[in-house]
């Protein structure tokens, strides 16, 4: 297992080195990404400036959601984007080459690329999170900090799992991968705000089917010392981020099914 990680980091090193070869371009890409994602927060700020509050939530509290979601998404994008090239690989037959190597396909695909430019989204998420954390009237304890950290990890796993599922679709069709973007990018848009503000079917979708709530709304209840309107017991709020990790594990199983399908039908 440790050996697999070593190989993964070796792969990543290759990717990082080739990106750093174009240093200026990397800086430009990251800066551009920073601005492109940061304007979302600007929009949020404008709306709060105009409307003062969002139901029972203040800007500082919503900023907490924003920060966690963006950091989690940035990590997932940076790490799992190697799977993006996958549909091209299936079409061109390059995927066979991966199967001919005595390593798991997940390791090889994840190791293909670590997108450094995603640091743009990461940074603006970090800034917003720190601002929110410092401005909030919350008693910060080690436990709460750990929960924030766990939420980010859980979120990164969940988004990562969605990207893996999106790539897995390429085993069956090369066309409707766009659909999953509604859930990933749409998910980011959605989870930046507390889920309580949405319609019921929407809430249910993003709680049970694509469990965004597990690393945003539910942990936030514990962090902000709020009680839920839906009668959610306290321990759920603390344990919720593990759902994201489970989601990722399930995605890998689905991926394996996809590989099995590929191996019995050719390409």
């Amino acid at each position, binding site marked *: 297992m440790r050996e697999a990680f070593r190989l993964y980091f070796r792969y990543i090193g290759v990717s990082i080195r080739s990106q750093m070869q174009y240093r200026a371009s990397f800086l430009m890409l990251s800066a551009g990404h920073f601005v492109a994602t940061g*304007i979302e927060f600007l*929009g949020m700020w404008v709306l709060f400036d105009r409307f003062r509050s969002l139901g029972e939530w203040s800007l500082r509290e919503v900023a907490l959601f924003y920060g966690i979601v963006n950091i989690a998404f940035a990590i997932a994008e940076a790490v799992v984007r190697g799977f993006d090239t996958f549909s091209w690989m299936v079409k061109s037959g390059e995927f066979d080459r991966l199967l001919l190597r005595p390593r798991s396909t997940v390791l090889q695909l994840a190791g293909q690329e670590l997108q450094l430019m995603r640091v743009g989204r990461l940074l603006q998420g970090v800034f917003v999170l720190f601002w929110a954390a410092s401005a909030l009237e919350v008693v910060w304890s080690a436990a709460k900090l750990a929960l924030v950290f766990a939420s980010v990890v859980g979120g990164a796993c969940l988004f990562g799992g969605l990207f893996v599922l999106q790539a897995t679709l390429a085993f069956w069709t090369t066309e409707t991968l766009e659909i999953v973007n509604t859930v990933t990018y749409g998910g980011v848009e959605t989870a930046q705000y507390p889920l309580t503000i949405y319609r019921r079917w929407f809430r249910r979708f993003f709680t049970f089917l694509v469990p965004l709530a597990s690393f945003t709304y539910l942990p936030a209840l514990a962090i902000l010392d709020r009680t839920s309107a839906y009668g959610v017991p306290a321990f759920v709020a603390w344990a919720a981020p593990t759902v994201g990790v489970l989601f990722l594990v399930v995605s890998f199983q689905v991926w394996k099914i996809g590989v099995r399908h590929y191996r019995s039908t050719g390409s």
Partner: protein
Amino acid sequence: MRAYWAVVSARLRMLLQYRAVALAGFGTQVFWGLIRVMIFDAFYRSTNAPQPMTYEDVVTYVWLGQAFLVLILWGVESDIRQMIRSGTVAYELLRPLDLYTFWFSRSLATRSAPMLLRAVPMFVVAGLCFGMRPPPSLAFAVLWVIATVGALFLACALTTLLSISLFWTISGEGLARIVPSLVAILSGMIVPLPLFPDWARDALDFLPFRGLVDVPFRIYLGHIPLEEIAPLLFHQAMWTAAIVLLGRWMLARGARRLVVQGG
């Protein structure tokens, strides 16, 4: 003119072929529209104070935004970027045609097709299902069409300017990535301009970007009184002209720079 139509119809046909992609993209946009509407709904319900725009207006505004998203969705045409990077643009400059006009009309053609293709079904779906309302009168509708055509020209002028900025390589590349995001927010696509803080209004009203989204959308809504529309169209046209002139000037400078630098 005929060349323009040829490119538009070719693009249309190409986009129609990728029907699954088009459908999925459409579905994504409907989803986004719904998210935005729900967010606005939650904000409006938080307060009883009167706002510069009514909720119903904002709903229509959001769907107009999805229909005409292509107006602010820019990338520099990848082959133009390649051309400038590799220096082969020098051949283009040698040709006996006006490179600026060529790039501009190309931009126009490649934007018109996706715009029509996305706007029509979005109007139908949003109008029937999601509470999108038609313009209050024929006068407003006609003026809206004029303003939208103006917005299209303005968008093309801006993207052509961005392409030309690539002559200055690195700084041009950075610009090409940052500017579209700034335009998105300053045009009113992310949040309608009337909802911005009052102290920002003067600057926002002066900048050209409102001509892309704010002006045509609010004409559609009847949010702008008829007598105030003409100056806004004028604002749009003047900025377009200014940016076109700037673009032409920069192209000449950039071409000279290329020749001096040796590509």
